[in-house]
């Protein structure tokens, strides 16, 4: 019971946290672009846009920060056995994340918000660059920790202390799973930030607000969606091929492939019996040879199936169930990839519309649809993480430690249940406040034209004549 509640708590707190993280990373780079454009062109438009999207960024960032503290504490709180087992390896990237990334991110964000009229414009521009670099670096270190759980490298087992010990920090920080996961996550974050910016700009464009201001934003965001989406898909493909080798069970579970097959189909629709751990599909429609081509680059490549891997795992690790819940992995994988391709399609349509002058502004239905699609990447991101983490079950560290062995022995079900309820209520309340603020701020739009005319003086050593933000 305590185990299930602890898992639910991890799911609720971590998925919630990850609503804000990709928006932060993606939008930070948008702000970098906009403020750099202002610095280069001295066109007031870019400053107004920086300030406007900066406000949205800050509303989102606040919740990312405060929910991040929970992330670092809950390993010790709910997963103390896990912490003892992996701390020698897992703790290092976490500590480095704080020391090398969080300090930069938070300190320079404070300088950015309040330093507009105190820092030289160049120094002030540097602060937003450092924020973006800090947030991106933090993703690298936390993914290093997570990738080690998917694909443990650079360690040895210490039988006396019953734990895994680090033998090479270099291997942990260059884990092939990490390199791909980082690329995939950052690309998805760019896509997420882009579609949020796109939705906001589309709303204003549709209402006939200054096209000279919002149209360039829509076009840039469309390109960012396209490039981010393409990179997400391509790197995701590389991840899939790696997963076929390193976590074959997860790959098989993503495709509901029960029996080892050469020339395996890429499933379009599968339906299994209503069981937690079925061993066959009842309905299976797919593209012949599709999975083999994607996973192994060959027409008749062999892809291992769930039932066969289960048998191998029993031989390797002893009796037990080594299958994840296929219903979850199969559908989350499809939601993630399906939404990813939808985003690409929408970006292409938008870019086609933008080719003729004035056509995008008149495409009212498309613009309205893009406002609704703001949440699309958020859903895809969540589905992706549910797939990644549920697909690894029953392991918490692939092949080394089972999730049921990882939970805190000294924490009772009541305690976990109480804190789960507490976090869920608090997070729900904050989500409502956050969403209301975001919508209100987004609707208010940028400051009027001329607000910051001549804010950047010719003397580069005088700070810009722009007040601090929102305080």
């Amino acid at each position, binding site marked *: 019971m305590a185990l299930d509640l602890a898992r639910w708590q991890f799911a609720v707190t971590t998925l919630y946290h990850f609503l804000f993280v990709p928006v932060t990373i993606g939008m930070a780079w948008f702000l970098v672009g906009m403020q750099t454009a202002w610095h280069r062109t001295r066109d007031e438009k870019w400053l107004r846009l920086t300030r406007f999207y900066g406000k949205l960024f800050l509303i989102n960032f*606040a919740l990312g920060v405060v929910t991040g503290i929970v992330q670092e504490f809950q390993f010790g*709180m709910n997963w103390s056995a896990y912490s003892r087992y992996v701390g020698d390896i897992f703790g290092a990237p976490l500590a480095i994340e704080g020391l090398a990334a969080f300090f930069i991110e938070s300190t320079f964000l404070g*300088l950015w918000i309040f330093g507009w009229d105190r820092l030289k414009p160049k120094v002030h521009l540097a602060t937003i660059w450092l924020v973006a670099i800090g947030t991106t670096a933090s993703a690298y270190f936390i993914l290093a920790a997570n990738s080690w759980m998917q694909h443990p490298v650079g360690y040895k087992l210490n039988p006396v202390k019953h734990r895994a010990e680090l033998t090479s920090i270099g291997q942990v920080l260059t884990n092939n799973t990490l390199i791909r996961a980082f690329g995939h996550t950052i690309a998805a974050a760019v896509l997420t930030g882009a579609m949020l910016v796109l939705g906001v700009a589309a709303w204003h464009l549709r209402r006939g607000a200054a096209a000279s201001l919002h149209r360039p934003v829509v076009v840039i965001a469309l390109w960012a969606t396209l490039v981010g989406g393409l990179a997400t898909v391509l790197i995701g493909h590389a991840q899939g091929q790696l997963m076929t080798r390193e976590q074959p069970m997860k790959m098989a579970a993503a495709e509901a492939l029960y029996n080892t097959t050469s020339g395996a189909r890429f499933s379009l629709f599968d339906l299994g019996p209503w069981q937690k751990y079925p061993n066959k599909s009842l309905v299976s429609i797919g593209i012949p040879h599709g999975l083999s081509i994607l996973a192994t680059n060959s027409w008749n490549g062999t892809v291992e199936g769930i039932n066969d891997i289960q048998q191998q795992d029993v031989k390797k690790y002893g009796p037990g169930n080594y299958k994840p819940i296929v219903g979850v992995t199969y559908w989350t994988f499809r939601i993630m990839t399906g939404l990813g391709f939808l985003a690409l399609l929408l970006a292409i349509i938008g870019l086609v519309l933008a080719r003729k002058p004035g056509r995008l502004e008149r495409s009212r239905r498309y613009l309205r649809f893009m406002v609704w699609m703001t949440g699309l990447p958020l859903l895809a991101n969540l589905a992706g993480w549910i797939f990644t983490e549920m697909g690894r079950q029953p392991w918490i560290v692939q092949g080394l430690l089972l999730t049921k062995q990882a939970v805190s022995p000294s924490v009772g079900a009541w305690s976990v249940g109480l804190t789960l309820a507490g976090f869920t209520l*608090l997070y729900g309340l904050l989500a409502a406040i956050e969403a209301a*603020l975001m919508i209100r701020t987004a609707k208010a739009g940028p400051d009027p034209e001329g607000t910051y005319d001549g804010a950047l003086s010719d003397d580069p050593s005088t700070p810009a004549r722009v007040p601090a933000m*929102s305080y």
Partner: protein
Amino acid sequence: MTLLAASTHGYWNLQTLWFFLIVVLWIGYFVLEGFDFGVGVMLPFVGRNVQERGTLIRTIAPVWDGNEVWLLVAGGATFAAFPGWYATLFSGFYLALFLILVALIVRGVAIEYRNKQTDDEWRGRWDVALTISSALPPLLWGVALADVVHGVPIDKSGEFTGNLLDLLGPYALFGGLTALAVSAFYGALFLTLRTTGELEERARYAATRLALPAAALVLGFLVWTYANAASAHDKGLVPGVIPIAAMLLPFAAWGFVRARKDGWAFAATAASIALITLTLFLNLYPRVIVSSTNNAYSPTIFTTSSSHYTLTVMSIVALLFTPVVLLYQAWTYWVFRGRLGDENAAKSRSPMDMLERSPLGKGRPSPEG
């Protein structure tokens, strides 16, 4: 037993280095967030209306997030260097940490969201939330740290076996009260340095009133700590210069604030917070948490530490990054050294409003018109 562990291992080892690095991180956290919490606690006592409270919050708004990272790094460093310590402490102090987390979440959101809308009702509610959520962390950290030193039920395998009530003994509660009082005093002193006019005067008056109670509590808490150490544990607290200075400095701060030497009073209090923290951890060393079940069960830096390789890697990382962090955080305080006055409160109702009062906003024809 624990003394034996220290004597067999000596002091020149990576475990001792990391123990004291983590002490430095906690000191950094308490010294920096201490005044953030204090400002939050003093909000209703120094600020009389929404605008004034806004000015007070503005003194910590640029820096609170950077200050809080000290906690994250302390937690991360404990995880990396002493996984066993991290596991026992965080799972053992489960509900206390949950309350701290809730308070830290509410506090962060309160600071960041209060000015996102301009109506007084919205701001007033966040101000109340900020005051409560600023009072809870120092109180609970005080309780937790006192418990770590005084002892909680821990079995042979290093697992916590008690419940929430075991964490709320008289000594621990006294520690919590002391931390809250010192934090409020410290926050008031911070405000005397960062505000002008009436706000500065009110902050100084509050500091004057808080100085003696805070100093008395520190004195009582450290004497009690000493009595505990001498009677209950195998290790006496050396009544050396560190705890004595920690006891006397708040009294010095009282004298300074009465003489309107706010900077000195602030520095004395900061030093006292650092030395109280150091005293507690020195009392703990080489244990990382005391077992009240049996002192021999107390996990130590040697039984909970990571491997030599990990500690070496982490030492190099710390050596590379810490000086840089200290430099740019110090620079932030330099950038935001200016005082904020009550006229600022009237001015900064909204960024637009501020702008209209600036030379930019005066008498310029509307570009739309």
